[in-house]
């Protein structure tokens, strides 16, 4: 018994079917695009600009610069860790306040990460300032190293501010 076979579809008909399916898909994509465009839709891949964050970041940059400049120009006890230990938790609180605000914005991962890096850098600065075990309060930041510390912090704040300002659109 021979198994009946379906008549082979004519090549021209197969091509026409394929082209028809493609045309259908393209038309659908076009309609989707037109709907997006019609809704006045703008795509957002990153958070909006936040003026408060911008202003806070500028203030914090200035505060760190001022602190390091004081350590550079001060003398004796005034530049020792013991006298200045209060600066570190205070500054950390200020940075965390901006971090929390940055976290409140969706699609703001880059900026959030930058604030977390800043907190880590602050810890490292404190570590560099602290004296050896048993003499922590007498520790000082080496005067020759302070311009490098300052430049690194300024550059990090610059990066944060640059990104924030770029979000204005």
């Amino acid at each position, binding site marked *: 018994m021979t198994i009946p076979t379906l008549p082979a579809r004519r090549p021209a008909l197969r091509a026409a079917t394929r082209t028809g399916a493609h045309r259908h898909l393209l038309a659908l994509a076009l309609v989707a695009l037109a709907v997006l465009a019609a809704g006045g839709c703008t795509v957002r*891949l990153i958070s909006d600009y936040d003026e408060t964050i911008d202003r806070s970041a500028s203030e914090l940059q200035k505060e760190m610069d001022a602190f390091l400049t004081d350590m550079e120009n001060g003398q004796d006890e005034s530049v020792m860790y013991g006298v200045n230990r209060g600066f570190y938790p205070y500054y950390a609180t200020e940075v965390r306040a901006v971090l929390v605000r940055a976290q409140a914005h969706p699609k703001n991962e880059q900026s959030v990460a930058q604030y977390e890096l800043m907190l*880590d850098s602050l810890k490292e600065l404190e570590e*560099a300032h602290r004296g050896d075990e048993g003499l922590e309060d007498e520790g000082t930041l080496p005067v020759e190293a302070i311009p490098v510390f300052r430049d690194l*912090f300024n550059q*990090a704040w610059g990066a944060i501010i*640059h990104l924030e300002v770029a979000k204005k659109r």
Partner: protein
Amino acid sequence: MSFTVAEILKPMMAAAKASLAQDWGKAEDYAKPEMKRLAESLAAIAKLVATKKVNQRQAKALLRIHGNTTQSVLLTIDGLGVIAVEDAINAALGAARDTVNTAVGFKLV
């Protein structure tokens, strides 16, 4: 109402390309001096260590801070890239909108 896919695609691609070219320039303008600055900081740290102006703990702290600052700069470059893509997509959408409206002769979308 009649327009082909090519008629919409061409202005969309042109708009996206122009937008990306402009935004790439901005990212490059930012990245180059920042990288130079980071390289200079690293050289300065090496000199401080070589001349024993910092102790081991301070040297480690400086390097860690340098690493954090480098990451921060890279995050900004990454963010600028995301903004560039966003701008390109929106430019293309805008071009699609303009093309459709021109083709139909009135503000359809």
